[in-house]
């Protein structure tokens, strides 16, 4: 009898807690899922499945302060295991085909500097869609590393642990991912004519 009563109280408070946390995190989880899966319906499924697991496993979460990271971990695991099921083997991307790409260095070429402060100008003109496209175009493993560290603020060690890879692998995927991201932003900016000093069609 007392057990039932206690259980009832626990469920009530768990529900209130879960609802408030989910409300607070929902847009971020969905936005993240959208970047990972690349489409709305898979993103919705991923978030719904992850939250179902979280709701079922809530009593196992000891530290409620850790809810955010815990749910994110469930989401990453769900994504990774879905991908494993879809592909016979994950496509390993070669980590170091080209050298590092730096947007800053590209913007600091004399012919652009002559026109003012190209880096501020680029940041002002970049649209949300530009960044989304650049991120979406990254190979999956690099994208995942960028999302985990840059969007969710995880440490390299936490990322490595969640993905079950060495920290060095996280470091190189992240560095390669950022380099490709900056390279994509640079090419998009050129194509959109965002760089004043660089008239379209200027050969260089």
């Amino acid at each position, binding site marked *: 009898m007392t057990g039932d009563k206690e259980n009832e109280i626990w469920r009530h408070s768990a529900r209130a807690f879960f609802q408030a946390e989910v409300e607070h995190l*929902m847009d971020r989880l*969905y*936005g993240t899922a959208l*970047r990972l899966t690349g489409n709305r319906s898979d993103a919705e499924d991923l978030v719904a499945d992850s939250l179902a697991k979280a709701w079922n496993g809530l009593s196992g979460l000891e530290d409620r302060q850790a809810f955010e990271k815990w749910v994110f971990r469930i989401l990453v695991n769900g994504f990774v295991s879905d991908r494993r099921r879809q592909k016979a083997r994950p496509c390993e991307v070669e980590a170091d085909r080209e050298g590092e790409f730096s947007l*800053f260095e590209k913007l600091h070429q004399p012919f652009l500097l002559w026109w003012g402060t190209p880096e501020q100008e680029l*940041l002002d003109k970049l649209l949300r869609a530009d*960044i989304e496209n650049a991120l979406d175009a990254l190979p999956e493993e690099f994208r995942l590393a960028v999302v985990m560290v840059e*969007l969710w603020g995880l440490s390299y060690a936490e990322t490595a642990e969640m993905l079950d890879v060495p920290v060095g692998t996280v470091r190189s995927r992240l560095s390669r991912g950022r380099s490709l991201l900056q390279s994509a932003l640079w090419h998009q900016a050129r194509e959109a004519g965002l760089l004043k000093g660089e008239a379209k069609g200027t050969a260089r």
Partner: protein
Amino acid sequence: MTQDLRCEEVIDKLLEYLDRELDRDTEDALAQHMETCRACFSRAEFERRLRARVRDISEAKAPDSLRQRIHAIMERY
């Protein structure tokens, strides 16, 4: 004991510096270098601002259908 870093070393470690992944001494050495080196400072600023822009895209408005699904899941168990 202050370490004197060259710009190339700073640039090499810049992303890990911004990720707060360096050990304390190296982090201090980079911070110190950037107090006096304008070039490295503006490069760090650029990377910081670009990151902030990238972080901005982590949210997207969740559709009502998703909210309804979550609601249903919570009712079921």
